[in-house]
């Protein structure tokens, strides 16, 4: 049962997302039937699933919301902003309840009860007021007379373990029943497959029965049968209806479809309105896809990595045979051709496989409309949200981690950026502010722009605040960019009033930290009075890294390209020592510590002198350092593998990768190496005295 739970939760959360999305897109004045259908279907599946798994609280709650939706769907109820808001609230409650069932914890019983009350109140009110003037509610009026049910299971219904006899028995418990079996579709005995169902039934059920009691009987088979439930009294008047209405009148055609042969929910075979809109539905979030565990995808990625290495090896062997002339040239050519093709195919496979992990950024963007809806209500602001480039893809892992920073930036833009309608009008802008989210690919990165047309950053205020906090000296002059950048500094919030939306002075620094930890960057541009643009740049994937291969001793290491500032050849003139214990290198106008990779990693260094050695100048955690290496090799993309999977974390290393020849190379953790260097210091005895003797002078003075 457990494994089904997982699927149920995943599907339910997805269903809630769909509901939320559709609810937010609902145009209250002009409601699209298909949207309501989509929302209803999601609610219905959640109800069904939670009932099956015994999550009764959800099932009960959802049932009430579903009833409301059902009425909307049938056109009994007008869709109002009020009801949409209430349904959104219900979505939240359902999400909370699901989370509690999934992860444990306590339910907020009061909150659930209060929303459920609101729902029930709304249900109670409006049915009474509308039922009087609505012909469609004939259903409920007719219920005392009884129902005519046509029930025809699809051929394969029995295989799902559903028994028509049991259902008919259940119906018999509801009231006086008359069942006529229709055996016209029964095949000859030779063709009869005992596992198939060929029968149909006409059932007349008399008595004071509610329709929902009947549909409940068929709840589990509604996708697997043709079912029509017609109120008994209505049959006659309906026929009359059909005769009087003109065939050309579209409107009246759909009306009796809902009124008279009340077709079962979600029933493609008989419902006319549901069919033509299926194509539209797929665009609204139900794209054709399969659910696959991420571990399976990673396994494929690993195997393809192996394939690439094998291919490289074959290519090399092929190249060697080529120069050997004793072989048959015709066969040789064929082999070379085949190898070239193998290389192409392998590369394509690798690209496709990496793409599996990529998802469109709309997964993150889809969280925003709800946030804007709620916040603009809370802050009394009018905001129009525009999203562009939603199809831009990025790695799932990156996506998961960018969600929270994005939410924070949106909150920030709504709270601090966009002004209230009054303020906007006063400054000559339209009443409604615009928040634009834009995503696009640039180089090997994805860029997300979040721009608003609000007040912009008040540079003077930021600067004053920074001065009072002592972040910036009294007379220090800063460029506009530098001032804007101050907002990412911890402990600097310029919000005049603290709200529960944003502005406690924590946040922007956390946003920057999170983005940096993903190997990305965030910058802000602001035009006072005109608006603010946050630009986030992120690597497309965390699985791949652009690296510089370096040689230390006999080993190859990978230095992440993002940490490298430059690579230089050490000139002894620029080398200085401190207390004979550390080497400092004068790089233009600053001094940076020199880290000998050999020493930090406890390897033999055959060359004691630093003169003329290669040094990679790197930056990690805001600290610069020079790392001495023996050789600079190629730059290439490497697939990151964890050392922790089978071993453990190792200081100074962030992982490992597999090179083209199949050997393992370790990836350096620059910040970690700088930390290690601080602990162990430079090698003892100190590096040979540089020719100019500066080293020893300083050492003497220190002594």
């Amino acid at each position, binding site marked *: 049962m457990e494994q089904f739970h997982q699927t149920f939760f995943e599907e339910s959360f997805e269903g809630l997302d769909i509901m939320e999305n559709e609810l937010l897109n609902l145009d209250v004045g002009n409601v699209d039937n298909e949207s309501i259908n989509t929302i209803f279907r999601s609610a219905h599946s959640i109800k069904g699933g939670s009932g099956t798994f015994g999550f009764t609280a959800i099932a009960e709650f959802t049932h009430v919301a579903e009833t409301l939706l059902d009425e909307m769907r049938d056109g009994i109820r007008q869709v109002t902003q009020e009801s949409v808001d209430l349904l959104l609230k219900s979505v939240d409650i359902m999400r909370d309840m699901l989370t509690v069932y999934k992860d444990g914890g306590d339910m907020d019983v009061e909150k659930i009860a209060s929303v459920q009350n609101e729902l029930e109140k709304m249900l109670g009110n409006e049915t009474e007021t509308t039922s009087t003037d609505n012909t469609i509610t004939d259903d409920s009026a007719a219920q005392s007379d009884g129902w005519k049910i046509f029930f025809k299971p699809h051929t394969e219904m029995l295989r799902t373990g559903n028994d028509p006899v049991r259902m008919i028995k259940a119906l018999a418990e509801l009231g006086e029943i008359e069942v006529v079996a229709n055996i016209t579709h029964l095949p000859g005995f030779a063709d009869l497959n005992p596992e198939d169902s060929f029968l149909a039934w006409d059932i007349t059920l008399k008595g004071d029965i509610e329709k929902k009691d009947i549909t409940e009987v068929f709840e589990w088979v509604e996708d697997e049968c043709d079912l029509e439930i017609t109120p008994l009294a209505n049959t006659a008047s309906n026929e009359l209806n059909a005769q009087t209405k003109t065939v050309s009148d579209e409107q009246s055609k759909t009306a009796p479809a809902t009124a008279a042969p009340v077709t079962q929910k979600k029933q493609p075979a008989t419902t006319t309105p549901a069919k033509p809109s299926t194509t539209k539905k797929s665009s609204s979030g139900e794209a054709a896809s399969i659910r696959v565990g991420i571990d399976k995808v990673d396994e494929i990625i*690993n*195997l393809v*990595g*192996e394939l690439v*290495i094998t291919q490289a090896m074959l290519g090399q062997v092929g190249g060697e045979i080529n120069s050997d002339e004793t072989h048959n040239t015709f066969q040789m050519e064929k082999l070379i051709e085949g190898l070239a093709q193998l290389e192409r195919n392998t590369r394509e496979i690798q690209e496709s496989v990496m793409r599996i992990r990529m998802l469109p950024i709309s997964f993150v963007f889809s969280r925003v409309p709800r946030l804007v809806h709620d916040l603009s209500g809370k802050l009394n602001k009018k905001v129009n949200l525009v999203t562009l480039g939603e199809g831009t893809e990025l790695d799932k892992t990156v996506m998961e981690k960018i969600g929270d920073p994005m939410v924070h930036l949106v909150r920030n833009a709504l709270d601090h950026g966009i002004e209230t309608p009054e303020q906007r009008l006063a400054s000559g802008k339209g009443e409604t502010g615009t928040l634009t989210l834009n995503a696009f690919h640039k180089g090997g990165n994805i860029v997300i722009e979040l721009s608003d047309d609000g007040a912009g950053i008040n540079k003077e205020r930021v600067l004053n605040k920074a001065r009072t906090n002592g972040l910036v000296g009294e007379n220090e002059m800063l460029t506009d960019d530098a001032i804007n950048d101050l907002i990412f500094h911890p402990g600097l919030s310029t919000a005049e009033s603290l709200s529960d939306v944003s502005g406690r002075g924590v946040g922007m620094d956390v946003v920057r930290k999170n983005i940096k930890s993903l190997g990305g960057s965030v910058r802000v541009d602001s035009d006072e009075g005109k608006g603010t643009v946050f630009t986030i740049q992120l690597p497309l994937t965390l699985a791949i890294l652009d690296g510089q291969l370096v040689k230390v001793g006999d*080993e190859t290491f990978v230095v992440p390209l993002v940490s490298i500032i430059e690579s230089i050849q050490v000139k002894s003139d620029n080398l200085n020592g401190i207390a004979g214990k550390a080497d400092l290198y004068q790089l233009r106008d600053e001094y940076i510590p020199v880290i000998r990779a050999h020493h*930090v*990693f*406890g*390897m033999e260094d055959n060359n004691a002198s630093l003169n003329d050695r290669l040094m990679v100048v790197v930056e990690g955690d805001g600290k610069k350092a020079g790392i001495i290496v023996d050789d600079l090799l190629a730059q290439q993309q490497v697939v990151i*593998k*964890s*050392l922790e*999977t*089978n*071993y*453990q974390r*190792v*200081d*100074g*290393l962030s992982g*490992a990768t*597999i090179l083209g020849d*199949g*050997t*393992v*190379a*370790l990836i350096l953790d620059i910040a970690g190496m700088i930390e290690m260097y601080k602990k162990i210091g430079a090698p003892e005895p100190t590096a040979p005295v540089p020719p100019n003797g500066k080293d020893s002078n300083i050492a003497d003075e220190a002594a």
Partner: protein
Amino acid sequence: MSTTATELNSIIGSELDSDADQFLTFILGTEEYGVDILRVQEIKGWDSVTPIPNTPEYIKGVINLRGTIVPIVDLRQRFSMPEVEYGPITVVIVLKIECPDRDRIMGIVVDAVSDVYDVPPEEMKEAPDFGSVVDTEFVRGLATVDEKMIIILDIDHLLSGNEIQATDGLSA
């Protein structure tokens, strides 16, 4: 050069008694050790490794095992036995280690692979306590096959996270 555990099982399995535990034995010096065959993932020839800096001597480094990074432990060095030059029959036995938090894949370097034996549980003897002379913590038991003594190892204990970090305290 590499043979998977399942292949090994199918080659030898038919002759074996299904009740008894099966052990793959290997040679270290003059001693014969055994590991639970169900834990053996693969046996492969010794190939060069990528050393990991700042790790104990007996961690030879990591290898690429079909896309997975697998650490390799030299068992002689682990037991502080005299080192020998790696030769053509030096093999790496890739084992599945069950740690409390997760399973790991690790390789051990041994002198040579010997055989596969059945050892019924009742024939497994407890290792005598040698006090400080020999650390028997990693010994699951002793078995006698063809009048030879086989030391059955507790590889989870031997190769689990805490143990491979320890750099001292071993006497053999």
